[in-house]
Every structure is written in C-alpha cells, then in structure tokens.
C-alpha cells in the first residue's frame, strides 16, 4: 500500500514526522530527513532567544526532562540562513511557532506566509517559557482566539499543538477545530520536576518537560480521546520509538505521528519507525491506513 497521508493540500510521503526540538531545524541530517514523512522545526520566536541556563536536559526512568527554553536565532535569521538550507529537504517542512502574545503569533505567521514552508505548528503548549506557552494551551478560549487570528493570516496547513497538562485536550482540540485549525498535534512534554541529591532543582530552568517512553501510555490515552472528539486529523506523539508504537497511535486515531526523544538517541530514530511501519504494512496486508486508523476500540485485529 502507499504510505502517503494527505492533509489539506500537503502530501506527507509517510506518516512519520520528526518532532519539534529534537531534529534541529531539519537540514542537519538531510539523508534522514529526505526519507521521513515530514519534519517539524525547532520552536521559532520573533526575537532570538538564548534559552535557559544549564543543565537543560536530564535523564529519568525511561524518559528525559528538558528545560531548553526555546533557544533559537529568531525569525529573521531563520529566513536568511536556515530557510535556504531547508530548500534541500524533500519532505514537507512544518515550522513550529512559539510566542508570548497573540500578536506575535500573527506576526510570525505573516512573516512566513510567502516562504515555501509547508505548514505551521502553533506551540500552545511549551512548559519551558514563562510567558504564553502552556498557559495558552490550558485555556480553550485562548486556543480558539489565537487559532482564529492565525487562521485569518495563513493559507498554509495550520496545526495546533496541544498540551495535556492540567486540561482536557479534547476541549482545547474542539476549540482549535472550531477556529479553523487543519489538524491538532499532541502531546507536548508533561510538567516535571527533578531534584538532586540535596533536594535542589537540578535543571537550570528549575522545572522542565518530561518526554520519551515514560509518557507513551498517557499520550496514547490523550490521542484516542481527542481523535474521538474532533473531525480534523490528529497528529500523535509521546514516547514513540518503534513501528509498533506508531501503529498503536494510528489505531488510537492518529493520521500522522511524530518522533521526538528517539531522535536524540539516534539521528535516524524516526527513520527506523518508518521502516518498521512499512514492514508491518506489508506483512499484515493493510490496504490503506483506514484499515487500522481509529480501530483501537474494536477489539482484536491484526
């Protein structure tokens, strides 16, 4: 079967994307990027951001807690220096946007409208910035307002990235859908605190976000819940490392999936997922993704 997934007018050659913040800006491992379904860039802000003080990343049981704090060179440098490099990426490139105010999201959107990027992912769920970030994502009204404002300014594929921290993502997903989002993606990292031997916060940003296999069952729960609540496509992520993991997210209702932390372990972490999914599709004789998508509720099948 063809692995292709089409959302709006964007053709993803396969359903596996590299998640924001775990694959640089997408051009660093070109040979890998060119065989993925798509890549989502590191979160981009209007002004350059230095990020949080170190340590920024720490391993926990089957997971990783990070407080990178959206270090990025800002949208001008992105357009001037990074975008030309992204021309060489063959799969769709989605730019992940972060901002502390609605107007900033709008400005970023307008700045990118004439560029060849395939779509935008609004990060309404970053736990590592004080202003905006996750706060927007916890409030369905804010999600609706920001999504609507951005929607007015872009004809590109618009994805809203949701948080599952202290909010029912089914509510915020419905808000994004009502405001014209083409898809929602979830989950972003979960709130986390790591203390050292003296009981002091280990991370420079004090708190951080948990990702990796440790969050997979919760992510899967959230993705299924949201997929049942909205009609727009759902992009699932959280701890995906194998083809089987990706298969489970598709069964839970995801159209696309993203691989994050697994890219840190291996530059081609997401590619392994593609290969395994392709093998599963062949050996299990699926005709199309519809054969499995959202079928988790229907008991046993292969």
């Amino acid at each position, binding site marked *: 079967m063809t692995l292709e997934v089409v959302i709006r007018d964007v053709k993803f050659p396969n359903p596996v994307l590299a998640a924001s913040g775990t694959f640089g800006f997408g051009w660093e*491992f070109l040979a890998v990027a060119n065989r993925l379904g798509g890549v989502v860039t590191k979160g981009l802000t209007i002004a350059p951001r230095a990020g949080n*003080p*170190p340590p920024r*990343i720490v*391993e926990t049981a089957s997971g990783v807690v*990070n407080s990178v704090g959206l270090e990025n060179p800002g949208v001008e440098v992105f357009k001037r220096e990074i975008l030309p490099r992204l021309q060489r990426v063959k799969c769709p490139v989605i730019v992940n946007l972060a901002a502390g105010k609605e107007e900033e999201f709008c400005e970023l959107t307008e700045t990118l409208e004439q560029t060849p990027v395939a779509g935008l992912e609004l990060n309404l769920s970053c736990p590592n910035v004080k202003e905006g970030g996750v706060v927007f994502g916890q409030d369905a009204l804010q999600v609706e307002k920001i999504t609507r404002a951005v929607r007015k300014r872009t004809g590109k594929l618009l994805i809203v990235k949701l948080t599952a921290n202290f909010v029912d993502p089914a509510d915020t997903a419905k808000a994004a859908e009502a405001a014209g989002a083409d898809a929602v993606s979830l989950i972003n990292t979960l709130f986390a605190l790591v203390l050292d031997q003296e009981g002091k916060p280990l991370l420079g940003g004090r708190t951080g976000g948990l990702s990796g296999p440790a969050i997979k069952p919760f992510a899967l729960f959230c993705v299924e819940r949201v997929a049942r609540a909205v009609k727009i496509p759902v992009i699932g992520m959280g701890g995906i490392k194998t083809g089987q993991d990706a298969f489970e997210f598709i069964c839970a209702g995801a159209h696309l999936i993203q691989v994050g932390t697994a890219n*840190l*372990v291996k*530059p081609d972490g997401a590619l392994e997922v593609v290969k395994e999914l392709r093998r599963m599709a062949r050996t299990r004789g699926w005709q199309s993704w519809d054969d499995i998508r959202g079928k988790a509720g229907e008991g046993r099948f292969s």
Partner: protein
Amino acid sequence: MINWSMGQVVEVARVGAEIYSVWISERKISRKVKPGQFIGVKVPERDDLLLRRPFSVADVKGGKMRIVFRVVGAGTAKLAHSKKGDRWDIIGPLGKPAPLVQNKSVVVCGGGVGAAPLFYLTRVLKEKNRVVAVLGARRAAELVMVSEFRQLGVKVYLTTEDGSKGIRGLVTEALEPVIKVMEKPVVYACGPEGMLKALCPLSRKAKVWAFFEERMGCGTGVCYGCALPKKDGGYLRLCQDGPVVSLDEVVL
C-alpha cells in the same frame, strides 16, 4: 559526517579505583576521530537508560578506539561489566577536534580520569611541540595512564591531594611553577569543574584550552541541551562548539 554503527569490545581493564579502560573495534569512527572529539555510547541491554553516554576518545590504533571512564552511575556501571566480544551501539565522531598548535611549549594538565582524553592529544601534539604533562588526582589509585604518558617520552609531573604519590597538593598548584619557566605556554586541561575554575586566573597569562562536560541530549547538535554560558552572553552548544573550548571564552 557523524557515523552510527556497532563496535565490538576487544578489551576491558580496570585501570584504577572505579576506573575502567575499554578498547572498541569499530572502523568508521575510529579512523575519523581526532583528539578532543567524543563518542556516544548506548548502554547495552538497558533500554530504560535512554540517552547515550558521552565519552572522550583516549586513544586510537588501527581500527580501534579506547575510552577510559569512571563509574559514577547506572550506565557506567553496566559498561564497566562489559566482556570481550560484547557489541556496543556507538555514534561519532562527535564535537570539534581540539585545536592543534605547532612549535609551542605545551602543558597537558589532567585531573583524575581527565588525563585519558589528553593522552591521544599528547600523542599527536608531541610530534610538533615540546610537551610536558601534569597529572593529578585525589589519591594514587585515581591516577590514570601515567606509564603510557611516560612511554610517549614526555616529562610527567604527578600530584595527589593526599600525597600518596608525587607532589602533595592540587594539580593546578603544580602547574604554576612548570608554566613560569616556559615561554608562551599553551595549556590543554581536562578535569572536574573545580579544577577548570582554578585555572581561570592562569588563562590571563597563558592560552588555556579546556575540555568541558555538560549533560547532553543528542550529542549531535539538534536538541540544544548542552549549553555552556559564554562570556559575551548567550550559550555555546558544547557538542558542536566544543567540548574543547578556550577557557577565557566561557563563564564558570
């Protein structure tokens, strides 16, 4: 270009108190890796230990590379129990090669297991420079690769904090008189953060290149996890801009 491939453990040896040396046979990376660069090792059979452990390369020889590490946690403990023939999933070379000088008076200054990455560097630097080594540790059992340094034919000064070998005191104290008699010395230092901090005043008199450590996510530049504060604001990405960095460039 970064490679990722399987290497085979060819020799594991305990070389000090809780310090192990492992030779890994792997052609692609060991042919390319330069002094100062490091590799990322996935701890075998421990999927719960998610991230790779970064280790500087201590030496290379004909399709093999050596790492020397201290057991500090679950990952290094597991690696120390490796057996000849075990297969390790590694990526590398990571980071930038250390800058190499020519026709200089060079001092390599290692604290504890920090001597190991300096060994490969010394072997290369000694071809075109006059090199002496100042190696220190808390106690004699934590001094590593001393005889190997001597076999290279470089003069070695030893210090221990408890006086169990060499001069009693800190490696940084032993370094000062050595440098004083040199003209335009260049120092390469690798050791715990406290040692690097103690070297900061010296970086006004001599060029000091220091090997830094920071917790890493990817080691390949894509996660922005390995930040080291710069003097002029912002951060270095240690796995891209380092791990060997001019000491006067950063804030300790």
